[in-house]
């Protein structure tokens, strides 16, 4: 390579010509500066640093307008590094979504077939799909028609479009819930706190028509009314449907919709720990094996006589 380059460009290219000369280097030295010049530059430096620190501190200061309640961390039983989601809870959470949240929120990225083997058997998922009327088409005459849902259908949207959703909710758009857990700081803790955290607005907070107070929602004024109350639905497995149970289950369900690969990911962690343990042990052994020669040799110095 080097030979080719020097043949093309001549040997000059490979010689380093840019070594700074002694005179250049000495111009960076402050040894022969006067005392006053040093003092001036020193105080300028301190001033600039101080101003920077002040600006940083001002930027970090607490602002009352940004006061916001962060959700507490809850002991979810999928929190551990190897812990799977609680699938009984996902199943109950689906019931909550279907009977409460689906009235306003879409879930465009989840299909009925995704429930199979996670929270429902194939027959149950088919029955769930058939309960919904899906718009399909166009048929031979160019018309759209309604048909019962199939496993391959995605969850239906409660509103035909965003404008209709806004019109029905005082101008606020209920976001799609498929990936909401990944899309909000605090994840499932935020969802849980948001759903259970409604309270009366403190004095001085003005709520507009159709707004409610929730300290966990940034700004406090949310356009979604409290949706979960004790016994607002009945669970098919007989679990007492308290408001916090409903919120916990729907948050687990939303965690699954946002991260359907959650369980596989944790299983993969177990496997990679196993494989890498074996590989590290092997590498260590091979290193010791190959180095035995180098480690056990002796170098002797015999001066010429």
């Amino acid at each position, binding site marked *: 390579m080097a030979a080719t380059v020097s043949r093309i460009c001549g040997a000059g290219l490979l010689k380093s010509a840019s070594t700074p000369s002694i005179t250049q280097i000495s111009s960076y030295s402050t040894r022969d500066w006067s005392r006053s010049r040093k003092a001036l530059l020193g105080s300028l430096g301190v001033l600039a640093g101080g101003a920077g620190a002040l600006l940083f501190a001002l930027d970090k200061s607490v602002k009352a307008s940004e006061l916001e309640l962060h959700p507490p961390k809850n002991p979810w*039983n999928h929190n*551990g590094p*190897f*812990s*799977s*989601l*609680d*699938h*009984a809870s996902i*199943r109950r959470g689906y019931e909550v979504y279907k009977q409460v949240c689906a009235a306003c929120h879409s879930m465009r990225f989840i299909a009925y077939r995704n429930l199979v*083997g*996670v*929270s429902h*058997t194939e027959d*149950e998922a088919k029955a769930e799909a058939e309960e919904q009327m899906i718009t399909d088409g166009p048929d031979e005459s160019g018309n759209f028609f309604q048909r019962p849902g199939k496993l391959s259908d995605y969850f239906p949207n409660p509103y035909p479009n965003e404008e209709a959703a806004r019109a029905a909710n005082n101008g606020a758009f209920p976001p799609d819930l498929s990936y909401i857990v990944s899309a909000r700081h605090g994840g499932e803790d935020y969802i849980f706190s948001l759903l259970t955290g409604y309270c009366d607005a403190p004095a001085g907070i003005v709520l507009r028509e159709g707004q409610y107070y929730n300290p966990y929602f940034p700004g406090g004024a949310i356009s979604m009314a409290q949706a979960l109350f004790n016994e607002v639905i009945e669970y098919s*497995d007989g679990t007492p449907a308290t408001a916090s149970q409903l919120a916990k289950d729907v948050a687990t369900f939303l965690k699954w919709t946002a991260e359907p690969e959650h*369980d596989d990911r*944790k*299983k993969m962690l*177990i*496997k990679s720990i*196993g*494989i890498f343990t074996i590989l590290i042990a092997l590498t260590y052994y091979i290193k010791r094996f190959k180095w035995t020669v180098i480690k056990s040799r002796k170098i002797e110095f015999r001066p010429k006589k």
Partner: protein
Amino acid sequence: MNLLTGLQFSKQFPKKMGFQQTVYNLVFKRTSTMALACVASVFFFERTFDLGSEYFFDKINEGKLWKHIKDKSQ
């Protein structure tokens, strides 16, 4: 393990056939048999490894996975 010593043995005592020597002659000596041995052992290793880690995962998450609750829901 002792591929190197095996090799030296074969030169020094060609009559003596220990277990390591037999394995060396049958498997490691030729690239073709070595490659075949790799493929075959990977098959068994991967199966046992997967079963083992799956068992571990299922034990940790006893009662939470779909396979543990699907009979209860019917």
